[in-house]
């Protein structure tokens, strides 16, 4: 089960990217990575449309591509969290909890005075915590 999680900024720039692979498979993973990135990018428009439809932060399933499901979450400052996963094992509840936890971590990272919003998050601490959250909920 592979998941690809990305936080997209205001200029469609990736602020944070993370893979949750099941096993490393050499070149196959590389291709898959390109594909998941492409799918996530393509889903951005749909995310933008969906976020205006209702007042919730969690956007549920936004798009499908073959066996990949794209789920979206938008924060109060219009930062988009996108998760591309190939398993239907994730319930909406799990996904919502995952997104909310990452949202909290994201806010804490934002409060760091040395971090400029909309720039890539390079904190190792943040990465580790997101990985833990991914293990817990996905």
């Amino acid at each position, binding site marked *: 089960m592979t998941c690809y999680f990305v936080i997209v900024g205001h200029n469609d720039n990736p602020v944070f990217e993370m893979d949750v692979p099941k096993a490393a498979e050499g070149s196959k993973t590389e291709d898959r990575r390109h594909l998941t990135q492409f799918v996530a990018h393509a889903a951005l428009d749909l995310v933008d449309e969906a976020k205006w439809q209702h007042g919730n932060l969690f956007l549920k399933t936004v798009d499908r591509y073959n066996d990949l499901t794209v789920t979206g979450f938008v924060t109060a400052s219009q930062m988009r969290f996108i998760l591309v996963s190939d398993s239907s094992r994730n319930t909406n509840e799990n996904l919502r909890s995952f997104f909310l936890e990452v949202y909290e971590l994201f806010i*804490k990272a934002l*409060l*760091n*005075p*040395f*971090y400029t919003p909309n720039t890539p998050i*390079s*904190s190792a*601490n943040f990465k580790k915590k997101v990985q833990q959250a991914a293990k817990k909920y996905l």
Partner: protein
Amino acid sequence: RFFFFFEMARQQHSRVQQDLRKVSGELFSLTYGALVAQLVRDYESDEEINRQLDKMGYNIGIRLVEDFLARNVGLGRCYDFKSTAEVLAKNGFKTFLGVVPTIANWDQKQEEFSLVLEQNPLTDFVELPEDHPELLYSNIICGVIRGALEMVQLDVKVWFLQDSLKGDETTEIRVKFIRKLEDAVPAGED
């Protein structure tokens, strides 16, 4: 400008409401963070930034001690360095930062001691950037202690021994007594 926020935090304190004080605590940390971030942008070397922070702290300290003594009227004169240390930790830090450091590691001559801070309200949410390894984020505290003690006729040297932001276990500030300052008659007046 920074002194104003100390004041604001203190005024909230006297209003008894716990929640109000919590909000202003965050504002205080964020303001200090913005200050340090700006210094990092303005100055090149970590040493220079540390020096600026110490200077700012000194300016705050020389004024803050008056306010402190006015608020804690019951405190009498300290007769030795040990009681100075206790007042500094239990009253000074408590009044302005809301935390009480532990006094530790007195040296043999009773002229040096350490203040060990378990938590530092200035550094909530802060992670030091990679390219500034020598930055002493809370160096302003050293300046404040130095300035405040100078106004009560004590010349001290204050510096950081450990900093939890840098990965050490705790934050430890060392204070060393240099000499007692005698009020000197300005040259020319006799």
